[in-house]
């Protein structure tokens, strides 16, 4: 057994994409193999443990607080053609008109729904990984309440935001007419997401696709988020497996005290500052073996559908909830990678 150094000291803050990926990522390897028409020989990929990047410290925690503790449904989005940040007011107006028109057609009208809405486009400054990443932007639908008791601004009915965190591999492949914001997150009624998606697709000739997260990536997320340094834990670390074989499904939830999960991770972890495939596998195997010891059940034969930590939680259906402002960029970076992979 190789010896390894005690837990690493925090590396200096950096915002270059190379610092995020050490060695080739699975995405780059897959692209390589497709180009060469050779069979994919997996060498263990590595990813850097999310740290606070320089850029992220510019993000006002208060401004992004509304992004945390909310469940977002994930989509990948192909590059937007002839999108301009100076036209946001115009887009607000156009989308507003489109939504009202669609709803008046009788599509997706819910009982008691009000047509009195307001659409706002705004930029999310600092929500990027590298300087090269395009600015993230936000779309919100607010209700304009009729009742005097509620405040004038109205409440937010639907939120969607578009971002790109360390999207170099995609940015390099498109011309200047395109804006690459491959990760789209939506919160609110599905019917609204559909209408807004239609408008974007028509206006910018792009395409949304739901972003599922498979068990392999969920395991990576669990390991990476457990590896993040936390001052205090706000949530237990939890895994959810679904067993398909029974007459109806059986769900098995395994929650472990976050300090114990960290202790287990620290015991498995060898390479300072990064996470390797081997470590992810070993971490998961330890959990499987602890479980098997008590229940004689092989969790590895079931389907991992959800992982939850104090940093974030993710569900295989493409749902994410981010709990920790400090690692927001790190979480989004992984999701951007998955989105880009799906687009290509």
């Amino acid at each position, binding site marked *: 057994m190789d010896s390894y150094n005690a837990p690493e000291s925090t590396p200096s803050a950096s915002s270059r994409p190379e610092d995020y990926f050490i060695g080739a990522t699975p995405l780059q390897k897959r692209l390589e193999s497709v180009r060469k028409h050779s069979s994919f020989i997996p060498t263990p990929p590595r990813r850097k443990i999310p740290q606070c990047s320089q850029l992220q410290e510019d993000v006002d925690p208060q401004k992004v607080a509304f992004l945390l503790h909310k469940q977002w449904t994930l989509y990948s989005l192909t590059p937007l053609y002839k999108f301009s940040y100076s036209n946001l007011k115009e887009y607000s107006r156009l989308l507003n008109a489109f939504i009202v028109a669609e709803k008046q057609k009788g599509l997706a009208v819910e009982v*008691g729904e009000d047509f009195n809405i307001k659409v706002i486009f705004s930029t999310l400054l600092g929500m990027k990984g590298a300087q090269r990443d395009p600015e993230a932007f936000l779309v919100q639908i607010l209700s304009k309440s009729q*009742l005097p008791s509620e405040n004038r601004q109205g409440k937010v009915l639907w939120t969607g935001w578009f971002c790109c965190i360390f999207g170099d591999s995609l940015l390099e492949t498109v011309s200047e007419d395109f804006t690459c914001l491959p990760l789209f997150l939506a919160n609110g009624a599905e019917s609204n997401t559909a209408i807004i998606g239609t408008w974007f697709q028509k206006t910018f000739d792009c395409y949304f696709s739901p972003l599922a997260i498979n068990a392999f990536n969920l395991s990576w997320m669990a390991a990476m988020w457990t590896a993040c340094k936390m001052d205090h834990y706000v949530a237990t670390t939890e895994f959810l497996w679904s067993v398909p*074989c029974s007459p109806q499904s*059986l*769900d098995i939830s395994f*929650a472990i005290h976050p300090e114990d999960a960290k202790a287990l991770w620290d015991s498995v972890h060898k390479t300072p500052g990064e996470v390797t495939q081997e470590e992810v596998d070993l971490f998961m195997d330890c959990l499987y*073996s602890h479980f098997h010891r008590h229940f004689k059940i*092989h969790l590895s034969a079931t389907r991992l559908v959800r992982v939850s930590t104090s940093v974030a939680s993710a569900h295989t259906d493409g749902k994410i909830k981010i709990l920790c402002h400090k690692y927001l960029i790190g979480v989004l970076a992984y999701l951007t990678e998955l989105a880009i992979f799906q687009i290509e």
Partner: protein
Amino acid sequence: MDETVAEFIKRTILKIPMNELTTILKAWDFLSENQLQTVNFRQRKESVVQHLIHLCEEKRASISDAALLDIIYMQFHQHQKVWDVFQMSKGPGEDVDLFDMKQFKNSFKKILQRALKNVTVSFRETEENAVWIRIAWGTQYTKPNQYKPTYVVYYSQTPYAFTSSSMLRRNTPLLGQALTIASKHHQIVKMDLRSRYLDSLKAIVFKQYNQTYETHNSTTPLQERSLGLDINLETKFKSGLNGSILAEREEPLRCLIKFSSPHLLEALKSLAPAGIADAPLSPLLTCIPNKRMNYFKIRDK
């Protein structure tokens, strides 16, 4: 109508999904048929609620009326609470008295009122000789908190009561006392059994207690399937693969494992044939019906 009552009714109605609203209002039977007909239920919810509050004001709704609405809401949304099970017993040689619902309700209410002075107690009887009880707790000096009530479902022909797990633990002994005395029992204990599904809990406890209960309700499907199984583990990590992992750590791993399924017992039984579990199944997975427990704590010996 008191402002706090109006606010409470408003918040209760706001919780009710639109598609259940007319059903629940009818079950409540407080607003008349004529009054309900004046309401346009296709408006925005806020407007509907506004109108309903106005009608409640016309009829001078009291806190008891509001509490009854809350009970009905909870009866429709039982799964929102986790239910504990209490078992009562009579003293040795005590006679089995004929149960008198009126006497029970009076006695129960009196005991709580004497102890706390400020408490709202409401009852709603249902079939199967069951009574739903709602208790909003106050103290000698503070008014009852209507937003954190405890619900109890007591089956008078059995020694069992189901209570919604409440945050206000300090009132549990008093509640136990009131139940025991009012129902003419001697002692009460909490079972290691809990679930969001009252029907599942009933299936587990009543099956053993009362055979005749089953024959009366032979059409009720076996609800124990939707019971859950919770196991609290505090055991050291011991890996077969790699002896050095967590080898120096004295502390155990603190874990909580939950199994859930619409058909839990059948699902667990199917794991071994599917190759997912080693046969024979671990006793932890098979003992729910016999032990009448569905949460366990496992510690290193």
